[in-house]
């Protein structure tokens, strides 16, 4: 743990920390392009040059380890002059096409120019080296070689993280350019990350290009729901529309990365197929309900005398939803609850971030003692005529039974209630449909494949008339217990979960934070 002095301030940092990290610890950003904490040190951009006492030349902060007693200056005249000149060099052959560049607003070249350079160009426009623009190099990525500053973050990512090495540096000197190798496309399961780490507008994401100026976007912290890994993400959105996911660093889960499948999964949670309105089937016609009517119907079903009520809750649900759904049915005589977690046989997986379990919360079901295949027992009971009512909570019945069984279920059951975000086969046999919010529209938690509890937050408003499920489940439980005290937030529900479930004991919403916490090890 060396202690050193940076710009007159003393700081103690971890062994092996470099000077960029050490300066960060005191809130001092040393500008840099090629350095990325998830990649090897390249030392080529020369932007992070700093002055170190007893060293004649400026040193690159990224490749300099903080050592005991080191005295570093990151804002001396010499350093500022060097920064200014590196920026001038970077812009010598840069096209300065910011007005039409998609990176504008999140471009380190723009940012640092405004912070450290701000001089007129001394290089004639017509002498600039011309290179390729808008080169389609893969399904997700567009390349502009003129905007590229040759920091090689992309090539190092593809060499070191994916091991696929599709990109290389070609030519020499100021004719250097990044390109795909001949006959190769930048087409791997993690290709989107290169656009994230590109500090300039050289590599852009085709899915996002020209859809929004980044300064109009807002950002919310969440977790990808595309599979059981639960990569930490920021959701960039505007006016209730999601524009993109960006991976958010979590050393214990996804480092700085996420897969393309997860990155594009945001499209599922908006628009097409969403359930927007509570409805009831009255003779083969859908009758719209307001929420009071919808909940009254469900309350009546729960209270009605009959054989029994079955409920299936899927691993798409948050820990809070699972907890409240269990509690709701526990308050009903003769109820049967099963968990459900299903992934297609063709589900992709690898040794890195992509899990074959395409549900975000299978471990969360298990933690509340619901087997992921338990839903089938509920279906069997319904087929055997042992149930009056079946409540499908975010569960696609067609994943649990055949079409023929679905038909029989429709006949065998008195009522089928679907509480879900999207239209699906379950709705075909439903008598009551209550639309609920997706994980991007609510606060809550998922438990990932390593039993790490991680938060999702409400970043956009629930679509249409849908509502956060935890709220309506709370209201139903409230009616059941005749006004017993209810949590007023998802965080409150989580705290109640922690009190009543062994696996979660000792945790609290506050403890989960934005990096998540692991559940205690499973006994046995």
């Amino acid at each position: 743990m060396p202690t050193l002095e940076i710009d007159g301030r003393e700081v103690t940092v971890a062994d092996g920390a470099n000077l960029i990290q050490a300066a960060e610890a005191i809130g001092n950003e040393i500008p840099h392009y090629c350095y990325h904490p998830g990649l090897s040190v390249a030392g080529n951009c020369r932007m992070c040059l700093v002055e170190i006492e007893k060293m004649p030349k400026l040193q690159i902060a990224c490749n300099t380890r903080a050592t005991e007693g080191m005295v570093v200056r990151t804002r001396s005249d010499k350093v500022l002059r060097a920064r200014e000149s590196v920026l001038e060099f970077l812009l010598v052959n840069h096209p300065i096409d910011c007005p039409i560049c998609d990176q504008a607003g999140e471009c380190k070249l723009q940012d640092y120019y405004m912070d450290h350079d701000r001089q007129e160009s001394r290089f004639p426009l017509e002498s600039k080296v011309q290179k390729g623009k808008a080169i389609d190099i893969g399904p997700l990525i567009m390349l502009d070689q003129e905007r590229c500053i040759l920091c090689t973050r992309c090539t190092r990512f593809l060499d070191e993280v994916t091991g696929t090495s599709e990109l290389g540096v070609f030519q020499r000197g100021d004719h250097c350019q990044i390109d795909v190798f001949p006959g190769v496309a930048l087409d791997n399961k993690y290709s989107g990350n290169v656009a994230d780490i590109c500090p300039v507008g050289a590599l852009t994401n085709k899915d996002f290009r020209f859809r929004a100026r980044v300064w109009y976007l807002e950002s919310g912290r969440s977790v990808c729901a595309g599979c059981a890994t639960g990569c930490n993400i920021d959701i960039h959105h505007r006016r209730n529309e999601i524009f993109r996911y960006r991976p958010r660093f979590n050393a214990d889960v996804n480092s700085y990365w996420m897969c393309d499948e997860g990155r594009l999964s945001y499209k599922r949670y908006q628009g097409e197929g969403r359930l927007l309105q509570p409805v009831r089937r009255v003779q083969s016609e859908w009758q719209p309900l307001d929420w009071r009517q919808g909940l009254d119907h469900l309350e009546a079903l729960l209270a009605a005398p009959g054989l029994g009520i079955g409920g299936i809750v899927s691993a798409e649900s948050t820990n809070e939803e699972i907890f409240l759904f269990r509690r709701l049915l526990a308050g009903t005589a003769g109820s049967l609850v099963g968990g459900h977690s299903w992934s297609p046989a063709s589900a992709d997986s690898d040794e890195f971030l992509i899990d074959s379990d395409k549900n975000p919360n299978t471990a969360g079901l298990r933690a509340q003692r619901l087997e992921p295949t338990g839903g089938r027992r509920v279906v069997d009971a319904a087929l055997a005529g042992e149930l009056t009512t079946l409540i499908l909570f975010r569960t696609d019945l067609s994943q649990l039974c055949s079409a023929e069984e679905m038909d029989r279920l429709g006949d065998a059951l008195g009522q089928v209630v679907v509480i879900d975000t999207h239209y699906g086969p379950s709705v075909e046999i439903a008598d009551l449909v209550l639309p609920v919010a997706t994980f991007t529209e609510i606060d809550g938690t998922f438990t990932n494949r390593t039993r790490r509890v991680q938060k999702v937050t409400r970043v956009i408003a629930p679509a249409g008339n849908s509502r956060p499920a935890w709220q309506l489940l709370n209201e139903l439980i409230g009616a059941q217990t005749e006004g017993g005290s209810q949590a007023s937030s998802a965080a409150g529900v989580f705290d109640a979960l922690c009190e009543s479930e062994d696996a979660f004991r000792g945790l609290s919403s506050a403890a989960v934070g934005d990096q998540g916490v692991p559940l205690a090890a499973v006994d046995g």
Partner: protein
Amino acid sequence: MSEKILLRHEDVAGLRQLDTYVGDGGYATAQRVLREMKPEQVIDEVKNSGLRGRGGAGFPTGMKWGFLPKDNPKPRYLLVNADESEPGTFKDRQIIEHNPHLLLECTVLAAYAIQSHKAYIYIRGEFARGAEILEEAVREGVAAGHAGANIYGTGFDLDIVVHRGAGAYICGEETGLIESLEGKRAYPRVKPPFPAVYGVFGSPTIVNNVETLCCVRPILERGASWFKGIGPEKSPGPKLYCLSGHIERPGVFELPMGTSLREIIYEHGGGIRNGRKLKAVIPGGSSVPVLTADEIDVAMDFDSVAAAGSLLGSCGTIVMDEDTCMVRALRILARFYHHESCGQCTPCREGTGWLERLLLGLENGGAADRDLDLLLQVADNMMGNTVCVLADAAAMPTKSFVTKFRSEFEDHLRHGGCSHHRQAASA
């Protein structure tokens, strides 16, 4: 110095042949050293000789060898830097093409000293003939037991591989050379770690220049004190000087380290071509600051040339007579560095091209008034701020040419181009 050590092939005909080389006492030193001396003794002898690297930097060779970590379990490698590519430099080529067994014997000796069992000779791609000669020499040497397995029955093994470079100036930079040898783009590495700790294939590696290595046999044959007795105390030994440009007798000359530049030009080189007057000399290869005709009374050794404001470098001495256009000469150098910058570091990648464009403007007309100062500022901003010294190699001549011959540059600016060109055109 009458007796030639490094250029012995000039005195002994057919020295390229193994039997001639052996007949001239070749490989006797290797046999004796491998049988009788411990590796540490060899290193000590080289340390005591004061031998400094002839590749350009002048770093003490024995000390470099001593940097190898003692407890690293990885194999050690010896890399012979035969990528001679500094403009004005053609000394290593002489040894490679005419006395290859001297290089091989010294490679065996150095490898023994550092206990390396694999040596790569990285030879400049354009040296096709030199590579053939070396490959033949390695075959002969291995067949005769001077290299390969169990050399002289001592149990010491050394596999020598001749590797042809891919044709870039930057491959001569020792870490660029290592990357290239590994099959990658020759991007020089950020240091630390240095090659002695993390070199080729991530293993401890020593990189030595051909001429440097070729001093090892003479040192071990005649003793460190003999070597130290030649030339100045702090940079002793025989030295190869490459003379080119407007000189009567261009070529490679073996003289004691510290011979004066004036003596080299006027006595050994026969003076300036066609009886013209001297204008300027680049003493150590195209990368070093230029000296004016008034500055040639300097001893050609590492410390003296540095004290005179230039560098001994690789001893590629380029002579320019009174008719030389210094703007054009610098523009040609700038073109070389623009072409050869590997493009890794921002200041060099963008600065080398900028320098050439500014100089083209001066030479052909079209330069703005501020361009002369801009030229110096760009050079200043490139210096000392990159992974390797290629940026400095482009900046140093720029600064010295403009500073020492500023009136010529101003003249170009005033007249909108080169008056030499105009004279030639009107003649």
